[in-house]
């Protein structure tokens, strides 16, 4: 609050204030529209699928689920209810939550590293988290099949530890020498290779039953999403996102340059440390349940910046909503485009993300930070 009045200026004129208010309301409107868009996409995701549920049945099931009356057994056909409530809904919610978290992590990493190419996937954080989770599986710390909450948190913790390790290595490299953004990406790729080598080693050494679980887990995907995983993931992501959002003003100041931020009283060391921890937690927790899904954390924040500008108070929620929409759409495509066979969702996000990434590489990076 204090900082907000500092940055906002002490006594702006009326015209300036009006202009600012208009800008702000425009951004809030965008976020509201994005929220509505997310709800619409959620509706589409729940309505589409190889079972070809009619919209009438869909509506019946929807009414049955929303109304508080317990007599939901009679609403809609049994098939429609099973497919929508047990199959599509948890999966769509997992996609929403995962897209949201990956995008939030991406926005944060881009902010604290002041690097438009930052993304948990590109920087090797996802690979680190994946190694951590794989390690937990092989050591039998948490049996991934048949999650109980406690076991789930053990795997998340292990994923988080290694995701964080990757983040701090990247961050250390970035601060040790003033590395060019592209160089940091190379470091991320190298880290990614290191951790996938670790996973390969684990596969090589594990016993038959562990190997089966590990292989199934590494192949990832959103199918088989369970309520338990959502219950587990939701508070973690919500807390991490809220935590990151609190540092919006500091991030804004950092966007103007490190010296500016320091002069405004931003504790840069703490900001970066907290940001790294929060972003790693988001990415790692997500990877634990979905496997590695690339590029959502890169694309969503850039679209967000395009829509609401680089004020992180708006950018972070907008990125999260866009990430959720993006992954939800990608997963719906993955389910339906080659029906009855599903294609991996990572294929679709990469098809969108890689051209995007390349175009960023060739664009001057200044533009994104003005």
């Amino acid at each position, binding site marked *: 609050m204090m900082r907000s009045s500092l940055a906002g200026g002490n006594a702006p004129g009326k015209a300036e204030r009006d202009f*600012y208010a208009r800008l702000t309301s425009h951004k809030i409107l965008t976020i509201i529209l994005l929220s509505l868009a997310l709800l619409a996409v959620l509706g589409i995701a729940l309505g589409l699928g190889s079972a070809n549920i009619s919209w009438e049945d869909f509506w019946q099931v929807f009414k049955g689920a929303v109304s508080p009356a317990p007599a939901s057994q009679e609403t809609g056909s049994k098939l429609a209810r099973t497919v929508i409530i047990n199959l599509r809904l948890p999966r769509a919610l997992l996609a929403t939550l995962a897209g949201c978290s990956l995008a939030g992590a991406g926005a944060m990493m881009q902010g604290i590293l002041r690097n438009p190419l930052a993304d948990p996937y590109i920087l090797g954080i996802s690979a680190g988290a994946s190694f951590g989770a794989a390690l937990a599986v092989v050591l039998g710390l948490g049996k991934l*099949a048949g999650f109980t909450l406690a076991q789930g948190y053990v795997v998340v913790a292990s994923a988080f530890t290694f995701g964080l390790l990757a983040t701090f290595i990247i961050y250390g490299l970035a601060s040790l020498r003033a590395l060019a953004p592209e160089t940091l990406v190379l470091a991320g790729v190298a880290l990614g290779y290191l951790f996938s080598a670790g996973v390969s080693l684990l596969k090589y050494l594990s016993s038959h039953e562990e190997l089966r679980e590990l292989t199934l887990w590494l192949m990832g*995907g959103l199918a*088989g999403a369970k309520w338990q995983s959502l219950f587990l993931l939701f508070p973690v992501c919500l807390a991490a996102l809220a935590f990151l959002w609190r540092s919006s003003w500091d991030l804004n100041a950092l966007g103007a340059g490190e010296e500016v931020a320091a002069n405004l009283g931003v504790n840069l060391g703490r900001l970066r440390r907290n940001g790294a921890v929060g972003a790693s937690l988001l990415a790692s927790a997500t990877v634990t349940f979905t496997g590695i899904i690339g590029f959502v954390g890169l694309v969503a924040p850039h679209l967000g910046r395009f829509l609401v500008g680089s004020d992180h108070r708006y950018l972070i929620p907008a990125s999260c*909503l866009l990430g959720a929409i993006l992954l939800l759409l990608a997963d719906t495509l993955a389910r339906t485009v080659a029906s009855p066979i599903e294609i991996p969702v990572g294929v679709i996000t990469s098809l969108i993300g890689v051209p995007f990434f390349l175009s960023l590489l060739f664009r001057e990076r200044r533009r994104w930070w003005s």
Partner: protein
Amino acid sequence: MGSKKNRFVARVLPLLMLLIIFLTGCSSPKNAAQNGLTGKTVKTFVDGTGKEVKISCPVDKIVCLTSGVSEILYALDSADKMIGRDSYSIFPADLEKIPVMAKSSFSPNLEAIIKSAPDVVIADTMLKDDLRAKLEEAGLPVLVYTTSYPHETALVVKQMGELTGKEERAAKLIAFSDKYYQLIKDRVARLPEDKKPRIYYEWNKPYYSAGDKTPANDRIALSGGKNLAAGQKVKYPELTPEWLAGQNPQIIIRMSSREEGADKMKALYDEILSRPALQQTTAVSQKKVSIMSWGLGTGIRSVIGSLHWAKWFHPDTFSDIDPEAAHRQLLKDFYHMELKGTWVYPPAK
């Protein structure tokens, strides 16, 4: 200050959004579906994972997501009951008419399967436990099997017989395999240990072998060979060429994939004979190198594979046995097919 209010809205809105999405998700009722029973007998099956599953038999509609079981169902004249399959269930070719409901057991299309309302879903262990739970929640019994070991295959055949009401035919199919397995066992048991050749078994890549507790290891022992890779710490080790040369394998077996024809098998054969590291070994210098298709590596026809191996390992002991004739008879009796294509290379003289 209007902006303060706006800030509040911007802060609360996304959180509220997430909350709403989440709460609507939580309020879903748990589904407990039950199939109507129509005067059939309910039987309890203990599947390949040790799980007890109750199914009313004989079933009319089967979704089978694993090729090893699909070919068994076909052999039991029950392919007409299959209403869905995985994309790998293509032997015999007649199965290709059945709709695909999964690429493999790893990625079943749950919606399509549930919509087709089968009496039972059959898969292999690539089916995630979470996905199995989803199918069971929808009221579909799920059986999971592997057909890598002969005893597993026999179990599946027996259970498929009970499931489809074809017990007699299942017993015949098991008897066919058992007869030959017993013959191999009896004759190998009489062989002295030092007569058993040292085998180097190579699966999908150069120098990739199979150690203890693998189906290949058991099958080498069954046919009277000594697996050089036994005793390795890793189940499927990659062996160094020089170590292998030092072990001096007497026979080399290389597996080729199901789709690969005679040309590819010949290429594999030539490639192994030309490997510099293996030039001094008995197997290469005496050209005791054989390529075998995966079609004879698992499932029903692995008994044919074992006959081939036994004859390669001990030509004198098994001189009266003709694996190709056994293969021909198996296909004729259970698949109504003629023997076609190349299954081993070089062909038996």
